[in-house]
């Protein structure tokens, strides 16, 4: 039976809607969700390809890459946590608000170290809406937002078409963001802000998905204009209200001391310059096979983004909810945590 159902795109923090095409409870394609206010049916390649993961769906637990009974895997995870005093929990921007709360309280209850990476950005209470971007008289763009977050990039294009000045700071030699910008620099963010801050007025917006260093965030905030940080993961903004974020250096330092690492719903091994195999036990809770599950000692399946109900906060601070569109017997993160607590 062919069905088309609404859901949210899991590929970044913009919060686009996407329709998935299901055939007998299997996801077989995507379809434009034109009614969705964020993206009006437009999705980037990452969004449309997000269903490609389903060929790598994990349905069974494994220890040392061999399938095992789920209860045995839970027992093993509990044993590892209880037997070691250097246990680190990796919280991800892919987790829903409820999952993040559960992971955090589990970490506190068991006295485990919690780390959370937020792209070296941080939480800003007041952020610009996407409509603010299109209505801006001037937009400062840091990073190739058009290419990396096209559905916010589209709002910058609209701003340009509405007569706004666009100034960008992009390290790459060529970029689509530069192509629509009035001027582009490739120097430091600090220099960029100093150069163009006098062009800003009350309707201007600074949009960024990267910075050179933490001081840049202070400088952007001190400008006193509207800002829109764009994160690489769906719910990074939401989780920033739940847990403190760590820099890459802080996380690597924590990993150096870690004996047991629990990774919830993320593929992190390629994001950090660190040998994850040096950790005694890497335990991955994941819906899909990925590079992290490949090197994990224990893998526990969890529900995918199409199989559970939850809510996330998008880049402009709007809470968005999603519902399951597929039936599944796999446990959610919250259920998995209850089992581990056991």
């Amino acid at each position, binding site marked *: *039976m*062919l*069905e*088309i159902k*609404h859901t949210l795109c899991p590929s970044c923090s913009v919060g686009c809607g996407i*329709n998935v*095409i299901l*055939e007998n409870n299997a996801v*077989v*394609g995507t*379809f*434009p969700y*034109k*009614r*969705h*206010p964020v*993206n*009006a*049916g*437009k*999705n*980037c*390649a990452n969004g*449309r390809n997000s269903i490609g993961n389903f060929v790598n769906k994990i349905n069974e637990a494994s220890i040392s890459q061999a399938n095992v009974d789920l209860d045995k895997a839970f027992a093993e995870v509990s044993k590892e946590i209880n037997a070691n005093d250097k246990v680190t929990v990796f919280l991800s921007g892919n987790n829903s608000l409820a999952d993040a709360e559960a992971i955090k309280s589990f970490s506190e209850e068991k006295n485990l170290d919690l780390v959370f990476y937020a792209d070296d950005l941080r939480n800003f209470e007041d952020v610009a809406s996407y409509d603010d971007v299109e209505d801006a008289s001037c937009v400062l763009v840091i990073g190739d937002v*058009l*290419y990396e977050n*096209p*559905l916010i*990039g*589209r709002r910058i*294009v*609209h701003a340009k078409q509405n007569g706004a000045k666009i100034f960008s700071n992009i390290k790459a030699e*060529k*970029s*689509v963001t530069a*192509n*629509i910008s009035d001027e582009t620099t490739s120097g430091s963010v600090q220099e960029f802000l100093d150069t163009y801050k006098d062009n800003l007025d009350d309707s201007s917006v600074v949009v960024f998905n990267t910075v050179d260093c933490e001081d840049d965030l202070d400088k952007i905030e001190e400008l006193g204009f509207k800002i829109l940080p764009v994160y690489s993961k769906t719910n990074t903004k939401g989780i920033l209200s739940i847990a403190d974020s760590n820099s890459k250096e802080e996380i690597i330092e924590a990993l150096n001391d870690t004996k047991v690492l629990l990774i919830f719903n993320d593929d992190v091994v390629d994001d950090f310059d660190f040998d994850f195999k040096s950790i005694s036990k890497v335990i991955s809770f994941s819906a899909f096979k990925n590079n992290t599950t490949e090197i994990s000692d224990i893998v526990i399946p969890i529900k995918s983004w199409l199989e559970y109900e939850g809510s996330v906060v998008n880049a402009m601070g709007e809470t968005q909810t999603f519902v399951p569109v597929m039936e599944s017997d796999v446990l959610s993160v919250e259920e998995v945590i209850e089992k581990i607590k056991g």
Partner: protein
Amino acid sequence: MSYVLAKSKDEEIHKAGECGGAVTSIFKYLLDEGLVDGVLALRPCDDVYDGVPTLITNSEDLIGTAGSYHCAPTMVGDLIQKYLIDKKIAVSVKPCDIRSIDELIKRHKINPDNLYTIGLNCGGTVSPVSGRKMIDLFYEANPDDVISEEIDKGQFIIELADGSEEAVKIHDLEEKGYGRRNNCQRCDVKIPRKANLACGNWGAEDGWTFIEINDEKGQELIDGAKKAGILETKSPSDAAVEGRSKVENIMIKMAKKNQDATYPSVNGIDDWSRCISCYACRDICPICWCYENCELNKSYFDEKDIPPSPIAFQGVRLSHMSFSCCDCGQCDDVCPMDIPVSLIFDKLQKKYCNRTGYVAGVSTDSKPPLYSPDKVEL
């Protein structure tokens, strides 16, 4: 080809239908008689702006698909080709839907024997997000309070929950950048004559659907639904036929005027500079069917630059399918960078048409002239 006025004999369907419920009744007949495995039609999901193609297998569920949804610019050819190829189905089709289906039939990607196509005359569709904004700006109404909408006599009409109606001239809306989608404004195929039936309210009396019966299969549908006791018909008057033709001709004239105004602007398009090579335009195109075998996926297509060279990226697609472009506008709809892709493809199709006489999805040729599905490795 012949004409008939029809309405449902089922009271609930008659009430729910846009103009007498004939389309829904024909679908019901097909499902109840077991002539199809399912009916593919639009069903409003979250609200009237959110029409979603839905496969109905139980005729009791058809009532949810009754009515018109101008704010749901969807396409079904792709869905049929990819997911329903082996099913016997009935489907409601706009002119661009049946044009794309016709092109896919010509390429042996859809089996016409498995299809019943109920065409819907179309004056154009409105994008749901801009449609809501349009109602907010130009009507004394909250978009959330709209329970139905229609395009009639050059106006976009909304009906509110309290039973009141508001109308604004489409021309006025479009002058301000709202109204119908750009491709719909220049579309000159308003009646889907390649469908078995073409249905609509042009020339119809209140509570009746004006149906053009386009082929033998269409006649069988009308006869069968009547025999099953669900459809009532009568002959339209000469004035009704003339009235319908007049509406069609006015709309075609408006479309041609729009074409004359917009085609020259193609030459000055510099929007390609923001193309991010996401392939959304190719992937949504109801004519593109090569998938993994697409030239753009070939190793010799060494186009890694972002943005890609338009002549290399779009040039490949233009040379492969622009002669079959049915100007459905899906490529515009899904482009994250709002590049007016369909304008270029449609303009080229018209040039091809001027040379060969071939109108994509309308002409009766077995294939577009000079078309070859063969691919030669370079």
